């Protein structure tokens, strides 16, 4: 089960992911990112502070946006990942493909740098 909340801050869309992302709930994550892109946000931050677990399907969602966001020049930065979660990203080699920061302020800073 996952709960996804979106709020806007300083021109960035912050998607907060709460709970666990498995094959079925990954659709919600996909929808949230798609909406954010569709609404024209130029910076996307994903708040993973409350993300307990992510399955390969959930990782697939992040992966699927890498190219599209790069083409559209929209930086997506993940922050607040738990060690276990970041480990999952790491094993798959996804950590080097995504922008991951420890805190929100760092994530915001990185997003601002990237969007220039």
């Amino acid at each position: 089960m996952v709960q996804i909340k979106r709020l806007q801050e300083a021109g960035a869309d912050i998607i907060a992911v709460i709970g666990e992302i498995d094959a079925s709930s990954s659709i919600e994550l996909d929808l949230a990112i798609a909406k954010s892109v569709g609404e024209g946000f130029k910076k996307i931050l994903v708040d993973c502070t409350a993300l307990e677990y992510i399955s390969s399907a959930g990782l697939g969602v992040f992966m699927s946006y890498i190219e599209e966001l790069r083409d559209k020049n929209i930086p997506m930065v993940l922050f607040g990942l738990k060690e276990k979660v970041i480990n999952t990203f790491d094993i798959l080699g996804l950590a080097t493909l995504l922008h991951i920061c420890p805190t929100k302020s760092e994530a915001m800073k990185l997003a601002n740098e990237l969007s220039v």
Partner: protein
Amino acid sequence: MFKNKALIRLALLGSMVAWLILLFSDVTVLFSSMQGLQPDVPEWMPRLMLMAFVICLFYYYKLRVERDDSLNFTDLLWKVFATGLITTVISLVLRLLVFLLGRTALATNVIFSDFIYQINLALLVNFLLAALISWKRLILYQKSKWLLRTWLAFDAILFFILIYDTIGISVSDTLRILINLILGIMLITLSANMRWVAYLNFRQKWTSLLLLLLMFFYLAYFFYSVESGAETITKESTGFLDFRNHLFIILLALFISLYGIFSFLVILFNLPTSSVFEQKLEEVVNFQRISQSIQTEQDEESVYNILLESSVSSVFADAAWLEITAVNNDQKIYTYKISEQEAKNIREHLEKNNIRGVLDTGSEKTKNLSKHLALLKGSRFRSILAFPIIVKEETIGTLALLKELPDGFNKEMTRIVSTFANQAGISIENFRLMEEAFQNARYKEELKIAKTVQQSLLPAKLEQDPDFEVAAFSASADEVGGDYYDTLRIDNSKVALIIADVSGKGTTAAFHMSQMKGIFHSLAQEHLDPKEFMHRANNALTFCLERNSFISASFFVIDTEQKKIRYSRAGHCPVLFLQAGEKKSFYLKDKGAALGMVRNHNYRNHIETNEIPYQAGDIMVLYTDGITEAKNEKGEEFGNDRLAQALNEVASLSAKEIEDHLTKKLYDFTGTKNINDDYTSMTVRFKI
């Protein structure tokens, strides 16, 4: 059934016998009284026989009419009318006979007059009883308990009056008045039950009026006949059965006429409103059609057509259209007496005037948009009413009804059609739910097939070598996963191993697994460096995998000549390696992105080849994340540490025994054999 028929015949026979005795005894009594003789039969005989006749005939009609459920109201009236017709014809034939006889001795004979009179009386009783039984059916239509009791009381009173007529008990005046009063109230109460009239349609009402009118004529005619017959006989003698003294017949005739008149008037006054009632009935039928369409294996389309038809006929719309967004987002339009272009014009006109109503699917309210229509030039319509069709709280379409009259729709119509629209929504929802259920069933079937495919993709036999032995274990959850492992001999001194995990589940996972198998079997033979293998595999998969799918894999080439393993890890779980000499185990966490993560030549930068030498006793455990992520009751994961620990415990055993131990440990940990992910592991143990 047979019993019933026999009873009917018995009743008829009884009534005939009774009547014959009645006729014979009455004539005898009359004759004796005229001659001043003591009659051969007792004087009470005719009355008793009349009673017997009445009772037998009553049962005859009761059995015939009451048991027949197929009769409708006009049929009942028709039966009474037919009885009346037959009896009247018989009576008229007799009259003609008397007329032909002229003033002969026979014609003026009192005995003959009595004979004719008795026949007429019997016919009258016949008619009255037939009518009584039919009236009972009509009055008791949609009966209440109370009404049924009143009728039973009425029946009983009729019976007592019949007995009273027969034996002639003397009753005091007060009691007589009281009984009359009760009877009067009873008659009026019973006659007020006219529910059946409402169920007649316009044509049936006219038929009923005609039939009732003719019945009145019969009644009048019979009364005239028996009255004049009785009058003639009375002049000569009073020693006969005079119906005018027979309260039962009088009362019955009164009741039949009263209810006949009531019915006649009620039907007459109901004539103008019958179309309204018919309309209501049609609405109910339409409503039923919509709600039943689901059970009769019809499709969504037929629900839309029924909705359109029913709505149009319920509110007398001149035209209508129904716009629906189907499941696959197709726009469909159903029209009635309006062209699609015309409908489009009206829509566009409303949109242009910025009217936010039902016609744009954002609204969920029924709206009367007539006032906006007045502005549209060149349209023949002056009223429009629009309804949303809602399925699962989502508006999927609009029903628009049009009239050429201004202010053509009233509140009542709005209510009816909105009920139709709601019901249609429910029907559609049911259809879609059923469709989903079918899909689910099909999906499960597909999963079964996928599982079989997946199982068949795994190798039946693993490559063995004097240098090492390989054992593997794989179990999958109900849902098919995409775990894959395999071995392939490249040449005398080289063997390739692979373990892979396809993201996602179900048929697609099994499908990608088979692709991975194809890639492994073709590329592994090419003597490729593991990095190159991964690079080519990534290239091959780039165009096969869905946007959000990827495959994690580890590829190994064991070189028995050089005693080393060259491998590449593409996002797969790090391999657990146990060095016998050092007595320690560790995970080979090298760099590497999963296949499909980077879908261009850049992938080269995200993958590398590594090398590790092996010695006798070294053990390598390949596994998928199902094992390390397996959870126990407390929600803890099996994890890397427990896996390494388990391996350390059995470092000296054979590959097969190690596999068995690891599996046992895993199942002990989770506490159940019901796994919710795929477990796959492959153990390589080096011997030399």
